């Protein structure tokens, strides 16, 4: 996909995120929107996957370590053809397979259940390690939040990945700068994020989370990097695309009401129209 197509797709994913969370009357739009471009890039461009065969043995793996942005993952999975887009409206409803946080037992395309912060990266490391043990060439991607990396287990996993030289693993940190209680550097600063991963023997790349050229270059560089895992620190805007959600910690885990939903969709329609003019 070229950048224009990716942008259009990402905007559709954002609309689905807002729609799903609105329908659920709960959920996490802020971080889903900040990572929407990444989800789109991974599932439409980067990863070797087959929606018709979600458990294909040699597929690339993705672990959503910051599991609360499930609406972002579910939206891209739906748009990629793993399940009907219409089902996104059942998010978090009783009886729906679209659980509040990723559930690998019931959701096609979800490679690991997650939600409790700090745990997903370890599972991703296990997947990458397994590939190394068996000489398989699939790659493993994990998305962490910048608040999530306050969890100590992230650094246990990073130490192990660096030690084992897992160059088939890419950790992406969604650095939107906000967590529930406010700015990450006010709450308990994880900065400098890049230097920390470097110290754990990662190759580190800083990019904008909303620039497909930079994303493309970073994932290419990650693939070419041998002998160490790669961490991509992507600088993002929480709530990206929805005017009143952008850079607002309050929209970390709040659903829009009907009026707010209408404004959000209007915003995203405008973004979509602007993309088409390009």
């Amino acid at each position, binding site marked *: 996909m070229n950048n224009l197509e990716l942008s259009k797709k990402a905007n559709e994913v954002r609309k689905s995120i807002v729609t799903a969370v609105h329908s659920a009357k709960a959920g996490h739009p802020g971080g889903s929107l900040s990572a929407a471009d990444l989800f789109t890039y991974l599932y439409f461009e980067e990863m070797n996957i087959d929606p018709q065969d979600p458990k294909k043995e040699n597929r690339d793996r993705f672990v959503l370590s910051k599991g609360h942005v499930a609406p972002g993952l579910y939206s891209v999975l739906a748009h990629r053809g793993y399940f009907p887009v219409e089902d996104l409206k059942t998010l978090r409803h009783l009886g729906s397979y679209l659980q509040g946080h990723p559930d690998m037992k019931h959701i096609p395309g979800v490679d690991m259940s997650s939600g409790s912060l700090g*745990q997903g990266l*370890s599972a991703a490391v296990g997947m990458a390690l397994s590939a190394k043990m068996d000489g398989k060439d699939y790659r493993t991607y994990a998305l962490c939040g910048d608040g999530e990396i306050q969890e100590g287990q992230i650094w*246990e996993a990073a130490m192990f990945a660096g030690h084992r030289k897992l160059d088939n693993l890419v950790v992406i940190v969604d650095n939107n700068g906000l967590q529930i209680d406010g700015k990450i550097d006010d709450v308990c600063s994880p900065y400098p994020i890049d230097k920390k991963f470097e110290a754990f023997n990662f190759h580190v790349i800083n990019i904008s989370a909303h620039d497909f050229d930079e994303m493309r270059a970073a994932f290419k560089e990650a693939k070419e990097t041998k002998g160490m895992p790669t961490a991509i620190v992507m600088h993002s805007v929480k709530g990206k695309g929805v005017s009143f959600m952008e850079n607002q910690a309050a929209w970390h885990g709040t659903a829009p009401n009907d009026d707010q939903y209408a404004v959000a969709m209007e915003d995203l329609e405008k973004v979509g129209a602007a993309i088409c003019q390009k």
Partner: protein
Amino acid sequence: MSEVKKIATRESYGNALVEMGAEYPNLVVLDADLAAATKTGVFKKVYPDRHIDCGIAECNMTGIGAGLATTGKIPFISTFAMFAAGRAFEQVRNSIGYPHLNVKIGATHAGITVGEDGASHQCNEDIALMRTIPGMVVISPSDDIEAKAAVRAAMEYDGPMYLRFGRAAVPVINDNPEYKFEIGKGVLLREGSDLTIIANGICVSESLAAAEKLAEENISVRVINIHTIKPLDEEIVIKAAKETGKIVTVEEHSVIGGLGSAVCDVVCAKAPVPVYKIGMQDVFGESGSAGALVKKYELDAEGIYRQIKSFLA
């Protein structure tokens, strides 16, 4: 009784793993810097490429085990019970239990027989923690034979399982041709009609000795070994309750939430009879030799005998 062979069930764990290594190429063993103590070192020696030392990071080891399991490996994650069930409880629950992944938790150094290390390392809470996780099988074998059989059964069972092993050498009691291990199936070791002792782990051999002593006073005691705490063999428990009218549970674990509680859950609902729970009575352990601790906390034959006598009085 003639002189019996003694072996620690952690040794059985390591030996069983190495015995199965060739047969199951997808078997992998993980440790957190304790391979020498968990006795998986023997596996590491024979299969170095399938032994993964995660360093002192049990939570990460648990997650790596989960990730490996999603790719078809069968990981045995090994560390002390305190860290396997205690420190990494939430990782076990969320990364292994919730997705029902095929990870086996080999928890060694359970209970007070850790000995000299003291209370910080004597985990008397692991069974209680593990059995609350939906879908988790929980097993506490009584001797070498049973421990090895349990590890093999774990290998052949698809799903998460917690296996509890001890540090101290315990007598081999299941060395007979009729012995058969089945997950969730209790073992009747001694017939009796006045009372039933239900025990597991190291307490089985001591319970048998206590039953012998009680028999000298014409108290007929049935002894059942419940190696699988979950799923519990309800049938054998209900039968014992109905036929003997009284039950005493004996475990090297807190009386809160362990085997005793599991037995009470069944008995309360289906065959109410008095149940007396022998175990750690809501206290921490302390430093001392395993033998001295078992004696002090009344988990030896003498202590079990005394407690049963006062229960019957």
